[in-house]
């Protein structure tokens, strides 16, 4: 036996090494767990080095750009970008609420709600598996991150946390072939499952051929998977065609539009309804200057929650529209407004007789209450 082992020493060591790793694999598969100790050591060893390299790279890049480009412009740009991202998220939420049928109640609900609680994280590296879309972020369990948390950017969803270590976490991107999430379309409210394909386009599966879906339709998270809060933008459908058993739907993710360097990990998610208008199609209204006279006496006055929020501006606009249509929105007993009136009506000629062929105004209906 000893002679045999000595003669075939190399082969014996090889077989022992392979056997040990097979046992390790079998243990992980059978127990559905993992050997965290080895991973923690490896991640703890690599993460500080990756952070240092990233800090060095970004420091050099910033130094060069600050030196050769205008110094103040960079700081202003950073500050405005941060403000813009924050305002974009608030705006998305506000527009969703205001587009519902009962706008007044939505305003009151929105004033009581608070947005999702998030933690900012910086991407510091990729994992070593080629073909897999898993990145490493510099937030771990010490920052309150847990496995299964959603990862987003202001433009849309990005992925989910699959592994958590003390100072780092692994985030599987939505483009990973093993990624899946529940989604719903914006116009036709079609439910489907978002799946990654290993490249920049993702697909929505399990949508029956009979379901109606348009190209250019936006998809949002449905909240069915209990990972992503409902109402987060996913992307726009670029290809929609009938397949063998299900529709073939390909979506361009919106979360990667601004690049992928900083992300937000949703620590406490808040579900939101699906907006009526897609993010790209929402108009930005510019208000007229406020009226000089006290023309707001007849209309119910909306209390200003803050200096000129979007909700206040939209309410003010509807009040002006009501003035032009000789109707007060939210006031009971006045009937429906006359939508045929132009918004800038000229004063009527008192000598001109009324046209008998015109149909009379429709009977008054009780408008929805406009609570303030």
């Amino acid at each position, binding site marked *: 036996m000893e002679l045999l082992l000595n003669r075939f020493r190399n082969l014996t060591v090889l077989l022992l090494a392979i056997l040990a790793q*097979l046992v390790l694999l079998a243990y992980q598969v059978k127990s559905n767990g993992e050997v965290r100790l*080895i991973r923690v050591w*490896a*991640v703890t060893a690599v993460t500080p080095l990756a952070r240092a390299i990233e800090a060095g790279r970004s420091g050099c890049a910033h130094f060069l750009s600050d030196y050769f480009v205008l110094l103040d412009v960079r700081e202003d740009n950073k500050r405005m970008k941060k403000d813009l991202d924050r305002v974009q998220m608030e705006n998305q939420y506000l527009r969703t609420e205001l587009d519902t049928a009962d706008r007044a109640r939505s305003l009151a609900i929105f004033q009581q709600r608070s947005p999702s609680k998030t933690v900012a994280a910086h991407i510091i*590296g990729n994992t*070593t598996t080629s073909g897999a879309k898993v990145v490493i972020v510099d937030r771990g369990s010490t920052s309150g991150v847990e496995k299964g948390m959603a990862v987003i950017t202001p433009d849309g969803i990005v992925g989910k946390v699959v592994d958590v270590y003390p100072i780092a976490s692994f985030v599987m991107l939505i483009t990973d072939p093993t990624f899946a999430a529940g989604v719903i379309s914006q116009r036709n409210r079609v439910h489907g499952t978002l799946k990654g394909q290993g490249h920049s386009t993702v697909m929505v599966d399990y949508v029956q051929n009979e379901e109606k879906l348009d190209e250019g339709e936006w998809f949002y998270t449905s909240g069915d998977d209990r990972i992503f809060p409902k109402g987060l933008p996913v992307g726009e459908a670029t290809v929609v065609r009938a397949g063998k058993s299900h529709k073939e739907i390909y979506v361009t993710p919106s979360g990667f539009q601004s690049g992928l360097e900083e992300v937000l990990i949703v620590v406490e998610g808040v579900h939101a309804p699906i907006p009526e208008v897609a993010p790209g199609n929402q108009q930005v209204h510019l208000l007229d200057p406020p009226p000089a006279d006290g023309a707001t006496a007849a209309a119910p006055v909306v209390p200003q929650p803050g200096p000129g929020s979007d909700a206040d501006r939209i309410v003010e606009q509807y009040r002006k529209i009501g003035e032009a249509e000789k109707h007060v929105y939210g006031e009971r007993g006045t009937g429906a407004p006359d939508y045929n009136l132009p918004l800038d009506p000229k004063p009527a000629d008192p000598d001109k007789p009324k046209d008998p062929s015109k149909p009379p105004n429709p009977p008054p209906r009780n408008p929805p209450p406009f609570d303030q």
Partner: protein
Amino acid sequence: MTEFSESFTEPRKKDRVSTFSWAAMIGIPLAAILFQVYVPRFLTFLSYLELPLLVTVYFSLMRRSPIAGVLFGAGIGLAQDSLSSHPLGMFGIVKTLVGYFAASVSQRFDVENPLVRLVLAFFFFFFHQFFYWVLSRALMGEALDFDPQQTLVMAVLNAAVAVPLYHILDKLKGTV
């Protein structure tokens, strides 16, 4: 046999074994793994470069010991597994085999010849990718695709990188 073929089959110094300092044996694989983790974020085309594999092949060839090759392969493979989302052992098993066979080949060929290094790097890359695909399907049940044409192209690219890389790493070795 001609003189030309003899130069491939018989090493110039038959029992030459290269030694490396501990810092090199730990730092070079760590640098290779860091490279694979960090650089493809900015240069995505470099994600096809398997530096940990090339480093495994190099150390196995230079040490000329199948046991050392097995240990190198297992160590580097497990470290790579630790930074992936797959269970531990996938890269470990494949690189263990690569290390063993590379060391076995080094006992029969002159592995300091650039042409031999090019061919070996090409062959072991293809072997590594193919065997990883076999393991994934057989052990993990993952329906991965294996594209022979793309793998051949990537093998050529990795082999082309391996030759100058090995030339640089030769500066760090000592000889027994």
